[in-house]
C-alpha cells in the first residue's frame, strides 16, 4: 500500500517541477515580452548587449534545468526506496525543493536588471488605462464557482452529522475520519473562491489604442483563469463527496489513496489546460500589442514578488507563471506575505521536528 504514497508524491512533484521549468525558462527568450521578470528591450539585442544577454539567459536556463533534473531524478530514486519516517521526510522536503527551481530565475532577473543599468536603459514610467473598460471586464460567473463549493459544504455537513451519529449509521472508517477529510477539502474550497475573485478583479491590460481589443484581451485572459478555478472547484467538490461515500462503505486505505491520486491527476490536467489556454490567448493577441507597457521591473523583487508602495492595487498579474500575485507593499499584501511565510516556514520546522522525534510515521 505504501507504494501509493510514493506514486502520489511523484505525481505531485515531477509534473510541478517540469511545469515550473517550462514557465520560468522559456525556449524563445528573445521573442517574449518578459525574460525572467524583466521587460525585453531592443538594447538587449544589439552588439555587446546581445552577447551579455545570451550569456545570462543561457546560464539561468542551465541552472533551472539542472535543479529540475535533480528534483526529477531524486523523485525517481525515491520511488525505489521503502517508505519510512526518513524517506517520508525526504519526499516532503522534495516538495519544498520545488521552490529552488525558481532560484536561477531570480538570479537571471538580478543579472538582467544590472545589464539594463550597464546599457543605460532608463525607466519609461508610463501607465496606460483604458477609460472605457474600467471595472467592466469580468469573466467569472460567481454562481458557477459557488455552486460546487456549496455542494462541498453540504458534503462536509453530511460527514460531520454522520460522524456525530445524527443519522444513526456508522461509517466503515474510524470515528471523525470523514469529518477531518471533508474539512480539509472544504478548506481548499474556501481558498479557491477568494483567489478566483481576486484574479477576476486584476487590472485590465492595455495593449492597444482600440478599447475593444483591450476588453477582449482582458476578458479572454480572465475567462481562462475563471474556467480553471471553476473546474478545480468541481473537481474538489466531487472528490469530497465521492471520497465520503467511499470511506463510508470501506476502510480500504488503498481505495482512498487511489481516489486521491485520481484527484491530483485531474487538478494537474486542469492547471496544464489553463496554462495552454493562457499561452494561446497571449499568442493570439501578440500582433495587436502596440503600446509599450510600463517599465516597473524594479518593483519586482527577483522578478517574482511585487513590492510597489506607490501602487494602491492589491492584486497584479504574475511575472513567473500565470495568474495573479499580491502587492507586498499593500497593507493586506503585507499580512498575506507574513502569514504565508509563517505557514511555510512553520510547516517545514514542524515536519522536521516530527521526523526527528519519530512522530512522522507511515
Amino acid at each position: 500500500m505504501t507504494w501509493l504514497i510514493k506514486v502520489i508524491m511523484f505525481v505531485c512533484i515531477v509534473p510541478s517541477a517540469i511545469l515550473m521549468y517550462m514557465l520560468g525558462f522559456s525556449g524563445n527568450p528573445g521573442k517574449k515580452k518578459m525574460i525572467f521578470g524583466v521587460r525585453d528591450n531592443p538594447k538587449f539585442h544589439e552588439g555587446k548587449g546581445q552577447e551579455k544577454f545570451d550569456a545570462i539567459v543561457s546560464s539561468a536556463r542551465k541552472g533551472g534545468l539542472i535543479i529540475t533534473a535533480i528534483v526529477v531524478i531524486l523523485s525517481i530514486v525515491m520511488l525505489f526506496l521503502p517508505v519510512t519516517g526518513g524517506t517520508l521526510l525526504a519526499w516532503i522536503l522534495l516538495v519544498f525543493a520545488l521552490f529552488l527551481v525558481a532560484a536561477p530565475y531570480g538570479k537571471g532577473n538580478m543579472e538582467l536588471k544590472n545589464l539594463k543599468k550597464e546599457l543605460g536603459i532608463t525607466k519609461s514610467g508610463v501607465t496606460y488605462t483604458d477609460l472605457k473598460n474600467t471595472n467592466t471586464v469580468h469573466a467569472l460567473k460567481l454562481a458557477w464557482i459557488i455552486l460546487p463549493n456549496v455542494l462541498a459544504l453540504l458534503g462536509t455537513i453530511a460527514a460531520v452529522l454522520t460522524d456525530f451519529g445524527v443519522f444513526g449509521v456508522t461509517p466503515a472508517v474510524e470515528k471523525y475520519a470523514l469529518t477531518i477529510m471533508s474539512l480539509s477539502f472544504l478548506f481548499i474550497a474556501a481558498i479557491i473562491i477568494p483567489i478566483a475573485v481576486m484574479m477576476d478583479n486584476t487590472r485590465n491590460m492595455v495593449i492597444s489604442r482600440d478599447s475593444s481589443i483591450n476588453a477582449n484581451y482582458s476578458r479572454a485572459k480572465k475567462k481562462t483563469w475563471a474556467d480553471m478555478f471553476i473546474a478545480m472547484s468541481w473537481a474538489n467538490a466531487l472528490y469530497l463527496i465521492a471520497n465520503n461515500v467511499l470511506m463510508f462503505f470501506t476502510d480500504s486505505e488503498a481505495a482512498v489513496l487511489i481516489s486521491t491520486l485520481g484527484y491530483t491527476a485531474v487538478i494537474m490536467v486542469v492547471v496544464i489546460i489553463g496554462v495552454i489556454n493562457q499561452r494561446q490567448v497571449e499568442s493570439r493577441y501578440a500582433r495587436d500589442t502596440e503600446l509599450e507597457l510600463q517599465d516597473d521591473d524594479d518593483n519586482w523583487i527577483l522578478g517574482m514578488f511585487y513590492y510597489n508602495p506607490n501602487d494602491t492595487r492589491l492584486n497584479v498579474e504574475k511575472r513567473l507563471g500565470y495568474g495573479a500575485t499580491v502587492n507586498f507593499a499593500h497593507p493586506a499584501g503585507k499580512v498575506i506575505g507574513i502569514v504565508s511565510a509563517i505557514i511555510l516556514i512553520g510547516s517545514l520546522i514542524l515536519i522536521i521536528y516530527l521526523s526527528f522525534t519519530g512522530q512522522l510515521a507511515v
Partner: protein
Amino acid sequence: MIIRIDEYSDVPIYMQIRNQIVMGISSGELKPGEQLPTVRALALEIGINTMTVSKTYQLLKQEGYIMTDRKNGARVRENITQSGVMSEENKTELRRIVSEARLSGVGKDVLKKLIDEFY
C-alpha cells in the same frame, strides 16, 4: 479612450488625467452624456489614490466639462458652455509653445497646420 500617465512628468497626475479627458471630449472620443468610470474604479485601475481621481473630477466639474451626481456617477456634459474666450492661463501656455517653436526654427505655417490638425 486610453489615458497615459507618466510617473516622471512634472505635470501632477490629477492634471494629466484632466488634460486627457478634456482632449478626449474635444476630439469626440468621449461623447456627450458618456459615462465616466467611478472614482474608485479609475483609481484602482491606474493604481493611484482615490483622492487624486476625485480631485480630477471636481476640477472637470468646476470647469463645466462633466457633471456628477450620486445616482449616475460622472458623465460628460451634454452641452458644454462655450464662452468663446480663451483663459489667461491657456494664452500664457500658448505663448510659451509659440516662443519655443520660434526659437527652434519652426515656421508659422507649420504651427498653423498643427493648430488646424488639432482643432
